């Protein structure tokens, strides 16, 4: 079966290069990529998931430092039964050059399932997600 992921960049963020390259890389790897591109509201990710219910994950990039605010609606959406598949996040997630662990914790608190440093980890993580799903349970963080 054709594997499918939904890809995009957070709502206030226009950084496009990593998004282009990650899409190419995942296609190279055999995925069908529904790429929503930059500046994508969380609701659009949810809508895309509803249109593509077989999607294994929603993969979001955020580079401009606004990840937390841009994903702040995730708990509300999930509570409404939307965006229920694993959310994978990567990029430059907080503002400033001196990062603290707190910034990442906050994002996990919103319900982000996987936070990755490097897009090259994506295929492995997507494989793990599928295994976990097949085993009928959701992997609890990587």
């Amino acid at each position: 079966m054709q594997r499918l992921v939904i890809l995009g960049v957070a709502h206030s963020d226009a950084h496009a290069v990593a998004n282009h390259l990650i899409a190419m890389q995942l296609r190279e790897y055999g995925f069908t990529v529904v790429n929503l591109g930059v500046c994508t509201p969380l609701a659009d990710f949810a809508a895309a998931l509803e249109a593509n219910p077989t999607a294994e994950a929603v993969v979001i990039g955020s580079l401009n430092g606004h990840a937390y605010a841009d994903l702040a609606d995730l708990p509300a959406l999930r509570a409404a039964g939307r965006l229920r598949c694993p959310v994978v996040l990567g990029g430059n997630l907080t503002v400033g050059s001196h990062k603290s662990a707190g910034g990442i914790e906050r994002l996990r608190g919103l319900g982000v399932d996987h936070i990755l440093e490097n897009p090259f980890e994506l295929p492995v993580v997507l494989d793990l997600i599928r295994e976990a799903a097949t085993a009928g349970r959701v992997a609890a963080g990587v």
Partner: protein
Amino acid sequence: MSETVEWAGMRIDRSTAADLPQWRETVDALRTSTRPRAADALRAAHRTGRPIAQPRCGVGGHEEMLELLRRLEPAGPGMLTVTIDSYTRLKQFDRAAQALREAPADLNGYPLTVHGWRRGRQLLDAVGVPLEVRHGSPDARDLFAVALAAGFTSFEGGGIGYNVPYCKDVPFATSMEAWRQVDAVCGALADDGVIVDRELFGTLTAVLVPPSISLACTLLEAIAAVREGVRCLSIAYPQGGEVHQDVAALRSIRALAARYLPPHVAVHPVLHEFMGVFPRGRGTADALILYGGLVARLGGADKIINKTNQEAYGIPDADANALGIRTALMGTSELLDFVALDEARIDEEMSWLQREVAELVDPVLQDGDVPAGVAGAFAAGRLDVPFSASVHARSLVVPARDATGAIRYRRTGELPFSAAVRQRNDRLTDTGAAAPDRFIQAVTADINYFLRDEPASV
């Protein structure tokens, strides 16, 4: 969409307009202001032959912004910046206001429309150099109105450069019209004796942008702006990394201006220090910042937008930014005036580059209506940008570095280049037809050109 009203001939949000002073008051304040003006600073730089340096800088809180400007001034910038946050850029003013209330330090810039023009004026009064508003708004009319009311005399952006890299789905017709209105206000102000410096963002998507695409886009924006009466243009070009190409591009800005623009318009070439993936090690980062300063001086730029050695990590702190200003200026020192380049090689680059620009620009100008020409060309891929954020550019062009590091076209897509231009690019990028996975690797290597294996700088 929120309700709009007219202010100085621009359509802006009613809520923005509600807080603004009368247009005549704004004009009078600008005309009688004794603050330093951007246009004068640029003209002075041009006279001395040494570019001024300007950092990007913007934080959410107002006091923090004042403090930041005051801490950067002693490093010797010729102009300072108010960098605007992403929400404001995208006219998500409510989210900007919310972030400012809840966690101002989490904003990646200063939400000027939320703070309002009175606070903007306090920023201008805090330092002795002109301030520019730098942002990335496909439609900046509200922001421009607030900036003018505050008294800013320099405003970045244009209908192409602030569309393609900065949003997903704003049609060119929309962004070109929004910026036409901004430029028309500048024209009206110029008639009143107030010159607003308009900087055009030739950096576009920043990563491996072929110089002729950058110069073509800013030239089209410049022509459109001048038609609306703009008299002072800063035309920015992003350092690509190969010195002859970069110097040729900077020098071509004046040459193209002489050819395409009327002589009464002041045109200031600006170098944006390397805008792509920045080295993470302090040694290379500092050297690259210095290198930018030197390239700017050699290329005859009037201004340098400096980077910092924290670029790869996040928005820089004030110390890193101050050091970035100093390091860029070091490259402009007269002590390095002995550095000379192979002028024949630069001439050759310039001639090819200007030819490419003409081949891109001339068809767009044919029908006379620049905004429509731009929209049509992008739709057809006759104007194009690699790695576009906007869905309205096709990103069929693929850039590549040649053996010297210069940025060429690996694929020209639908660009209307002559056979001669295409052949030259093919020859320079001839690395055998790369397999798809090798292709990603090759592009990534070109993107990561300045990365080195060295200790992190932060």
